[in-house]
């Protein structure tokens, strides 16, 4: 090529050269680079958003797993707690938590008297104010469980109030509490002294994972445990209903259905149902299961039924895909040795498609586990389920919450202490989702066959 150019036009300088880009080529190449950069930028934006999201969740949520505890020795005088003196728990129940409240102030007084360097001119009642509102109830439960502890001094570990906990976690500072009636600067000074003295510390809080939700005033006592049980029962319902029904529907559509308009209607229907907004399923659940059938409000059974209807299309679509991937030769071979059509499907095709079906089911369950909107409509928010259910029937029928609904509930309460718990709840929820999806991926890797 170069030889030819040299030979043809030795004298005149070439108007254009392959070695030198003209303006047009430069423009085209620049456009190429720009276009590529847009692509990289788009991916980068997506990944940065993911990173911000995850960092926010972890950064804001880990605090919920630790809690501030105060160790305190409380004297339990028999003459106020058991006036009749017969140690009968039924009689002692008449002393309400208000009766136990003064004991906490007295305990602080006693502590100051006993410990040097802990003097404070704070009113003992104010000192007791740094404890959680649940502290008197904790005392009362302890005494009622074993009346023989009366007239003794017992060391307790109390939850600190959410403001003190926020102070320990850096959420609350002396400046930020200027308008706050629940805590004062003097109380924070006292907290500092208790830290120095060693009876106030922040450590891991198992109750957040296993406990139940608490009322608006006690964010420090709220936990995810009971709503986790609620979610578990819902998933149980979804699994026992959606898996068999979904697999049966897919087998019919994939293996037996004749090609006619009814089959077409069913197929279009299923793909549309997969895209119906989840809140519409909530309306369906409210109208059919609660208003018409009078199933109990807020029951995991109802939540499970609604989520079943919502998950079915997902399971059907993935099951059909894995049935389709089993090659026809397997069916032909089964038919060839004398199996009926039904036998070839149930004995040969279905077992080969099972890993794919299982993967799809787990992904469908994970979707259902994180779904919130339909649960709002069937009443799974707005109340506090304080006890875990004691039997399967009560687990299905008694009012309960679910993990995402619990998170929403906390997010609505507009208190930074509850926000922290909402983020913490998200961490727990995501741990479940990541586990389920990992199992699905592993199953697919381990058992997927390429034909």
């Amino acid at each position, binding site marked *: 090529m170069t030889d030819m150019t040299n030979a043809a036009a030795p004298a005149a300088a070439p108007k254009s050269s392959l070695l030198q880009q003209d303006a047009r080529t430069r423009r*085209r*190449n620049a456009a*190429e680079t720009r276009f590529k950069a*847009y*692509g990289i*930028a*788009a*991916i980068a*934006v*997506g*990944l940065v*958003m*993911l990173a911000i*999201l995850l960092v*926010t969740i972890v950064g*804001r949520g880990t605090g919920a797993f630790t809690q501030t505890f105060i160790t305190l020795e409380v004297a339990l005088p028999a003459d106020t707690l058991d006036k009749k003196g017969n140690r009968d728990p039924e009689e002692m129940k008449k002393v309400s938590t208000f009766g136990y409240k003064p004991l906490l102030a007295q305990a602080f007084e006693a502590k100051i008297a006993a410990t040097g360097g802990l003097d404070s001119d704070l009113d003992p009642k104010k000192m007791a104010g740094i404890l959680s509102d649940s502290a008197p109830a904790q005392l009362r439960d302890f005494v009622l469980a074993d009346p023989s502890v009366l007239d003794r001094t017992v060391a307790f570990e109390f939850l600190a109030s959410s403001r003190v906990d926020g102070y320990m976690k850096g959420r609350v500072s002396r400046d930020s509490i200027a308008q706050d009636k629940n805590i004062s600067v003097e109380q924070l000074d006292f907290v500092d002294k208790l830290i120095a003295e060693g009876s106030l510390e922040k450590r891991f809080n198992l109750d957040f994972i296993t406990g139940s939700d608490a009322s608006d005033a006690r964010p420090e006592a709220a936990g995810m445990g009971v709503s986790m049980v609620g979610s578990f029962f819902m998933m149980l319902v979804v699994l026992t209903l959606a898996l068999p029904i979904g697999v*049966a529907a897919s087998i*019919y*559509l994939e293996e037996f*259905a004749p090609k006619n308009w009814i089959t077409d*209607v*069913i197929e279009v229907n*299923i*793909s*549309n149902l997969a*895209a*119906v*907004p*989840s*809140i*519409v399923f909530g*309306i*369906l659940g409210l*109208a*059919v299961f609660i208003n018409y*059938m*009078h199933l109990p409000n807020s029951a995991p059974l109802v939540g499970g039924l609604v989520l079943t209807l919502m998950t*079915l*299309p997902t399971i*059907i679509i993935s099951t059909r895909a894995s049935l389709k991937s089993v090659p026809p030769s397997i069916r032909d071979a089964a038919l060839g040795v004398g199996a*009926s059509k039904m036998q070839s499907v149930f004995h040969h095709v279905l077992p080969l498609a099972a890993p794919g079906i299982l993967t799809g089911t787990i992904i469908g369950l994970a979707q259902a*586990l*994180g*779904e*919130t909107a339909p649960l*709002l*409509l069937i009443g799974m928010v*707005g109340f506090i389920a304080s006890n875990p259910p004691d*039997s*399967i*029937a*009560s687990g299905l*029928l008694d009012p309960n919450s679910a993990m*995402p609904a619990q*998170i*929403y509930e906390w*997010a609505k309460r507009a208190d930074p202490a509850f926000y922290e718990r909402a983020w913490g709840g*998200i961490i727990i*929820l995501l741990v479940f*989702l990541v586990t389920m999806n990992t199992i699905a991926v592993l199953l697919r890797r381990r058992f997927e066959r390429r034909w």
Partner: protein
Amino acid sequence: MNAAQSSGVFGLGPTGLVVLAVIVLAAAGFVLARARAMASAGGDARRLHSLPNYYGYNAAMMIAVPALGVLVIWLLAQPALVQNAVLDLIPQRAIAEGSSINLVMSDVRRLAEGLDVAVAAGALSADEAADIVATGTDIRAVLGNVGVALGSDVDPEILAAAQEYRSLSRLWSWVMVAVVLSLALAGMAIALRSARAGFRARNAVERGVLWLLILAASLAILTTVGIVLSMLFETVNFFSLHPWQDFFLGTTWAPNFRGNSELSILPLLWGTLYIAFIALVVAVPIGLFAAIYLSEYAGPRLRSVAKPLLEILAGIPTIVYGLFALLTVGPALVTLFGRGEEGLLGLTWMTGATSVLTAGLVMGIMLIPFVSSLSDDIINAVPQSLRDGSFGLGATHSETIRQVVLPAALPGIVGAVLLAASRAIGETMIVVLGAGAIAKISANPLEAMTTITTRIVSQLTGDTDFASPETLVAFALGLTLFVLTLGLNVLALYIVRTYREQYE
């Protein structure tokens, strides 16, 4: 369903017990029929028409399927039947001013359940509960003792209705048990009689299984019908209480639970579409460029890392995005556009964390993987020969993409965008937490606005009265939402389908 709540063996009501009984009968039928068939063949399985187990399966199916089918239908129908019977007992005057049949019925049900609880707790004997007269015993105090709080003193008519409700519920429950069990036994008798060597058990079982499969497949249709009917009835109710002109053409959304509400969908529709529009403005360019880069430029290594990472965004529950909008993106936007001197730009355009922009941005992030993975598939489906032809004519890679690949993939991409739009319109948690609650038509994206889904949630949570237009409007909103998303989905599927046919 009250029967299911009252305690019985293992905490099961008659319903649970009858299910258990049918299962036991079916298991017994399996064993007996199999044995009978084997005996009729003289113990030689080769002389049977089908494998021995098929005789067992046949019996189990004959016992369980009709019985359980009738049970389900019965449970669906019983509440309506009992309610209709009880309604005749309630005189017009017991339905107080401002109340409705539904409210009175729920009182009746609560009272009936309370009596059941009292009997279960031993506060009343079964006979006492059946004969109790409002004038004699203080029913409210009795029920209060067992933890059932009644709102007001009990009207004798209501109490009579509750008694009737209890006795009818119980009666129908026992009739149901009898019918279901006799069906199961009849099925067992027929199956056992036919369990002989010549009986074509496999054919019978396979026919039965096929019908079960068809039933499962038609559940999808049933769900759709359920969705449409449940919303249609209440919507018709709503339009009988509230003029449709105001709903579709009015411009104010001001629900007022004392009546005289202005319930118009337009401000909500505006908020919904505005937020969806912002979400698409964020998601479509990012998602599309990501898909183009991943399918056209990226090597297998980048692709195998970036694609699953992006798809994580799609797997995160929407409640997480909602919280992210409310607590992270919203306050960040306020720091940018609000707070005056304290803010970053010194502006005072934004007052609260909830706004159209907050919800739209976060929803856009959520939709990125949705757009990118759908477009990725579509771009990959464009035949390589088209690209090769373009390269052969001297086009650069980006020119090929812009002038050949994208036009070829356009119908599919439009379909993907429509699907994403339908997602954005139906999304609930992000807007509930991030968009605010003020219904207005405004062009300022920094203002809080509200959407259809948000209003559905707020009208249907808490204490609801299904006779007031303020509650029923939620069903009209839901139906509108359903029609809107259905239209978008059908359109998208249609476009995608037509496109796919071009290259196959």
